[in-house]
């Protein structure tokens, strides 16, 4: 008699759940000490629906082939001097922002999923978290390899791990992941697995990868394809996590809601860096941040939260504010970097007339009215030899750690300030969203390592700008300041001159 072939699901179950066991030398509660303090109640771990059917043995096989294909492209890019084929030398600054601001967070995600993969009691989510942990490790490695080629020619990339722990704006993504990693395993899964990898990931990866495609950076595009096949697994895991928590116990709903509210807002703040990249940094822009927000948050997120409403979950608090901010955030962020260009590890520039026309077209409600006059003024000042630098250290938001440059909802000419009192101290915030997060967990956020405070406290190498840049390992005159006049620009112009010579 022939034995009936097992279905995919059954085969997968044998290779995952079939390998799990109940501990006997030690009680399970001691083996999994972190899965109850957050208040999440799981009645039945076996009700977890494995969202994909990938066993560890085939995982290695898949990832090995992806690596082979990616490195073949990276090698070809290097051998053909692909760096000379990008649209403009300015584009390298997009990669600097990615490698310094995003890549270290891949590593943080690797560590976080390793923690979740160790401490979730159910074997299904444990296997999935383990794979994602390895994916994230692969992602940072391939990102470093992809971008390392540019490090041979362009400034600002070489010290990225050192900078990550020190530089003022890099503390924004760093504190986001520090917050998630110092939470319990369930909050981590909602923060990174659901809010970041599902709700917001398309606003992070698509802009960088399509930006690369539009600007002739084929090695980064190939990295994007290589990562995307992992990302879909991550997104599926994020969806399964939130469904599982909401279905397991009614008491989980208010906890999950609080996390969705928190991590949506924190993610939105981090993505402000992507917004300015899309609107100001790409020599050949793909689409505006506002358009991307409309497609990936308003439409796709709208469908998502409409479905999740069946569980009683609301859309994230302040999603309406975030949508209204899509008209402003890129302009306000790039203006901050322009003013503090002397302390940034990538180059800045003011948009030229042609680019400002593009911004006017993309932001008919706001650009001409609020932002064009400032750029025109700064361009005029630069022409007169009075390029504007802001030499005062900015006040930072205690939660998102971004300089307090954002404006009041509905009033783009007034800076938004919020504050809370805690144990006799006053803490400052850029928004109601950030204030709410602090107020819910003040003991956590009073410990924030705020770069400006640290400078004032004398912990960053000294009191002068060169002292602080030295502490950052930021090469003054090479890594920082405007693109025009930088060593990057000089090199790029030489390449262009060589091309002309060759053509003749």
């Amino acid at each position, binding site marked *: 008699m022939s034995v009936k072939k097992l*279905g995919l699901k059954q085969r997968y179950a044998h290779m995952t759940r079939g390998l799990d066991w109940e501990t006997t030398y030690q009680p399970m509660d001691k083996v999994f000490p972190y899965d109850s303090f957050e208040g999440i109640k799981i009645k039945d771990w076996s009700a977890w629906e494995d969202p994909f059917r990938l066993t560890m043995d085939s995982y290695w096989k898949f990832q090995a082939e992806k690596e082979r294909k990616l490195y073949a492209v990276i090698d070809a890019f290097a051998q053909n001097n692909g760096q000379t084929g990008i649209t403009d030398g300015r584009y390298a600054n997009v990669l600097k922002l990615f490698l310094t601001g995003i890549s270290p967070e891949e590593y943080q995600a690797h560590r976080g999923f390793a923690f979740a993969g160790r401490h979730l009691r159910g074997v299904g989510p444990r296997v999935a978290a383990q794979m994602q942990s390895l994916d994230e490790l692969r992602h940072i490695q391939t990102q470093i390899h992809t971008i390392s080629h540019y490090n041979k020619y362009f400034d600002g990339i070489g010290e990225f791990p050192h900078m990550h722990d020190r530089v003022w704006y890099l503390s924004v993504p760093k504190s986001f992941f520090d917050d998630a990693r110092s939470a319990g395993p369930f909050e981590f899964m909602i923060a990174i697995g659901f809010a970041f990898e599902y709700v917001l990931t398309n606003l992070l990866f698509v802009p960088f990868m399509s930006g690369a495609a539009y600007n002739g950076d084929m090695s980064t595009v190939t990295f994007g394809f290589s990562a995307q096949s992992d990302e879909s697994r991550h*997104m599926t895991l994020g969806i399964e996590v939130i*469904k599982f928590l909401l279905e397991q116990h009614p008491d989980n709903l208010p906890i999950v809601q609080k996390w969705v509210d928190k991590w949506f807002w924190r993610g939105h703040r981090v993505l402000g860096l992507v917004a300015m990249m899309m609107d100001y940094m790409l020599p050949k822009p793909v689409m505006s941040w506002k358009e991307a927000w409309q497609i990936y948050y308003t439409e796709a997120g709208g469908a998502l939260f409409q479905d999740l409403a069946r569980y009683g979950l609301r859309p994230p608090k302040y999603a309406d504010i975030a949508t209204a901010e899509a008209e402003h955030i890129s302009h306000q962020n790039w203006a901050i970097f322009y003013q503090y260009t002397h302390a940034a590890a990538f180059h800045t520039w003011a948009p030229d007339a042609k680019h400002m026309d593009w911004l006017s077209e993309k932001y008919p409600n706001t650009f001409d009215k609020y932002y064009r006059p400032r750029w025109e003024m700064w361009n005029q000042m630069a022409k007169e030899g009075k390029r504007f630098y802001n030499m005062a250290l900015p006040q930072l938001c205690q939660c998102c750690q971004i300089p307090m440059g954002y404006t009041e909802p509905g009033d783009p000419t007034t800076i938004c300030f919020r504050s809370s009192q805690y144990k006799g101290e006053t803490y400052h915030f850029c928004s109601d969203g950030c204030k709410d997060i602090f107020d819910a967990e003040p003991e956590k956020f009073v410990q924030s390592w705020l770069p400006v405070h640290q400078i004032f406290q004398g912990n960053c190498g000294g009191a002068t700008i060169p002292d602080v840049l030295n502490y950052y390992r930021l090469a003054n005159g090479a890594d920082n300041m405007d693109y025009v006049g930088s060593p990057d620009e000089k090199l790029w112009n030489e390449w262009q001159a060589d091309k002309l010579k060759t053509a003749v």
Partner: protein
Amino acid sequence: MTVHKLTIEPLDEAIDVAEGQTILDACLRAGVYLPHACGHGLCGTCKTQVLDGEFDFGEASPFALMDFEREEGVVLACTATLKSDVTIEADVEEDPDARKIPVRDYVGKVVAVDDLTHDVKGVRLALDDGPIDFQAGQYINLFLPGVDGSRAFSIANPPSDAAHVELQIRRVPGGAGTGYIHDTLKVGDTLSFAGPQGRFLVRKSRGGPLLFLAGGTGVSSPRSMVLDLLAEGYGEPITLIHGVRTKADLYGHEEFEALAARHPNFRYVPALSSEPEDSDWAGARGFVHDVAKGLFGGVFEGATAYLCGPPPMIEACIATLMQGRLFEKHIFTERFFTAKDCAEKPKSPVFRRL
């Protein structure tokens, strides 16, 4: 246009696929859910094993579909197209309650056209050429003279009455198909149809209490299902809530009340949503989901629910059931996939069937 046959294991179901149509598109349109995400060959969620036949991989990304998988005949359903008849093994679960009944063409003679209400006709067809095999809850595609295409209607009689097909048809204002039935159709006419279709059927193997939530003529499938269950002696509690607007829209209640009197495990609750406040109606008032919530104290855990009716009613019922701790695995709805459903609004991957 060339059409190939796609056989889907382990369902052992065969569907038609047009030249150039992707496997995923064909499956979704035929009501077979395959896991998928990006829809254009980049993510690899819809990986499917081809067991037999000629195919084209389409634009599958080399990072989503590996070379060693291609050699083993793995495709991405969202990009792969057929070059011959093909058999695939898909990541679908076998349904122990679904019987495999081939769809056939039938001709029925109209033996009764009754006014069930002011705008609902009951049509009874006699199958003189032999009985139809179907499962309670399934539907047929009815062809009407002078009307383009076919119209789908649920079978209201139980499978034990296999020599007949009974349909309950509300007049859709301005509708050609239902207009024909209401204005022209008469006893003695013959109509052709194809069936049985659909996977809306009772998962008897699960056991446990059953909850039927019906709106308007959506009660036709639940009628077939309830009659079938009671006839074979299903012993667990069965509740049918039938929502209509006013007393004038209610039909079939004498029969259901008689059944409830005979079967202590069957509860029948007609609910009126727009009945005038001062009428003599002593039964439940309000929408189906609200009446269900009141009846069950808002807790549905442990039951299996079957929903049939207009989309807003189904949506409201799903939310009520879920907030009463009954989730997708235990909720079945009558839903037709059309090209419009697949293409238009962005859909989230939270739910597979609902």
